């Protein structure tokens, strides 16, 4: 299931180069590690939502670019058009569902040190995941 979610996120956040500046894509931002962590540490409901979002993303190219193929089989150009189309579709439920997979993509991308450097922000430290013990 991870590859399914991963490929949707990579399509939503691709690496882009403009005027000699590289904007890292989600795949450049430790996405595999992040998704393992996300799946393990989020709630079951949120993970199910993420998978649902990926499902909607992959099985709607017919609605956006009129191609009867799942998104994971689309060539790069068509995939990019689908990613733009499905995130702005006028069908609310689909837009919301895709948002559920865009959200973890953003959480991964925006926390990456290369991305933060590009937007003049210092790198984030680690999440200690600790709490005050009894006493």
């Amino acid at each position, binding site marked *: 299931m991870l590859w399914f979610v991963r490929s949707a996120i990579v399509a939503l956040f691709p690496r882009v180069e403009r005027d000699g500046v590289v904007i890292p894509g989600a795949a450049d931002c430790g996405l595999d590690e*992040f998704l393992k962590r996300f799946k393990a540490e989020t709630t079951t409901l949120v993970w199910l939502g993420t998978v649902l979002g990926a499902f909607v993303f992959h099985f709607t190219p017919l609605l956006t670019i009129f191609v009867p193929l799942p998104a994971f089989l689309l060539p790069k150009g068509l995939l990019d*058009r689908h*990613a733009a189309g499905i995130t702005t579709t006028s069908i609310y439920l689909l837009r919301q569902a895709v948002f559920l997979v865009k959200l*973890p993509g953003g959480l991964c991308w925006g926390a990456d040190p290369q991305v933060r450097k590009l937007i003049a922000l210092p790198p984030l430290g680690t999440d200690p995941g600790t709490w005050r013990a009894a006493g």
Partner: protein
Amino acid sequence: MSHVSFQTEHFEAEVDFVVVGSGAGGAAAAVTLARGGQKVAIVEAGAWRDPEHYPQSTFGALRDLMDDFGAQVTLGGAFWPVVQARTVGGTTVVNSAICVRTPGDIFRQWEAEHGLRGLEAGVLAAQDVIERELAVEEVPESARGRSNVLAKHGADRLGWADSHYMKRYVKQCEGAGRCMQGCTGRRKQSVNLNYVPEVLERGGVVVSCAPVDRLVFEGTRAVGVKGRFVHPGTRKPGGEFVIRARKAVVVAASATHSPVLLMRSGLELPALGRFFRSHPGTGVFGVYDDPIDQNVGATQGWASVAFREQPGLKLETLAIPPELVASRLAGGGTVLMERLARYRHIAMWCHAVRAESHGTVKPGLFGSARPVIRYQLNRADMERFRVGMTLLAKQHFAAGARAIIPGIAGLPYELGPDQLRLIEEGPLDPKHYIAILSHLFGGCVMGTDPKTSVTDARGRVHGVEGLVVADASVIPTNLGVNPQHTIMGLAVVFAQALLEQHSGVRVGVAA
């Protein structure tokens, strides 16, 4: 000194007062009771995290600090997130610490519409003390950042009746712009840093990782609480806990959890879970030629209450972290990345609508503790919502923005100054907008009539002895300003009334 955290063994205790929830309302009530010489137990669903435990990333904040990973949404139409924290200190740990006194007209409205008398002097006196204790100060010049300064400039150019740098419960803000992940620099005075530890120092008990499942009654008297510890990492259940209250139970689990806890404990009051309200809000981004770097400077630093009465909204700056901007901006693929490439040049300012619509809060499927919130804005509120967005757009242009990003589905991604009509005449269906609910009210509203309210003017639940609600859920109207100060002021007054009832000693102005 005794803090009890997650454990697999059974835990029991007996105290004078049990306080459920350690957020704005719970901590203020608990410290007032402890200062009155009472033995208090605070029972909190979340873990106790000090600044050294705070997460750095937004993912970490959702995981460690937020209720339900921030995934709670309204039902009944548009899915708008309902954001709250689940940690010792409650939502004060993740909020922006904006401190606004309860406006006088609110007390008059409460008296006229709900028969609530005698609250104003006590609440304002409590707010005086809280402001001193929690070091309330205006955002210092060094921490304002460009977004806040530009917002003031834009509002001043438009000649708005009010345009000010905020006062917050923050001691010398260093402008780290990460209030939502918890202030690791200990500048923000969230109540986990002051009132909760003070309860311990005064001989109280804090029981963390302990979501209360049921209130315990003897006849019509509340005598304690019970539940099961939950591990903050694995979320696996631990041992049971039972905490008895010799004098009273104070419920302060928030506007969504308090009504659900009362319902799941078997209380049947006609108004329980009704009159849930909020200040829904959304942001409008301005696009500027020069870098704004919105995450440098106070997370929220500027505000205006010029439109609080007409049309009924508050305007503020708000810097959300890049992790959330990435999913907040419309689009996907190359087009989204190109939008994100201009991140340094965008600034988000937002509104909080004084919405009149109300909804309901109920337990989840099969009576689970996960609140189900049914809430949608009516047409009048959506019109306010739209006007607020137009005002924000005008403010951006007055501040020198080249374009604005309204984030309205169906409208162009960016609009220029001559396209504001598109927002003014924009859709009134909430599904076109991305809003969040962070100021929540109601569910256990105060009033004099048990048919239309759950508590009296001192938070005492109608028809039950020894049970007080002291959080946002008692507030029977919207406020039009940020609610933490009102919640804390009310909680102090309710606790003072409890002290008077149980010790006969007059405490505070309101007693």
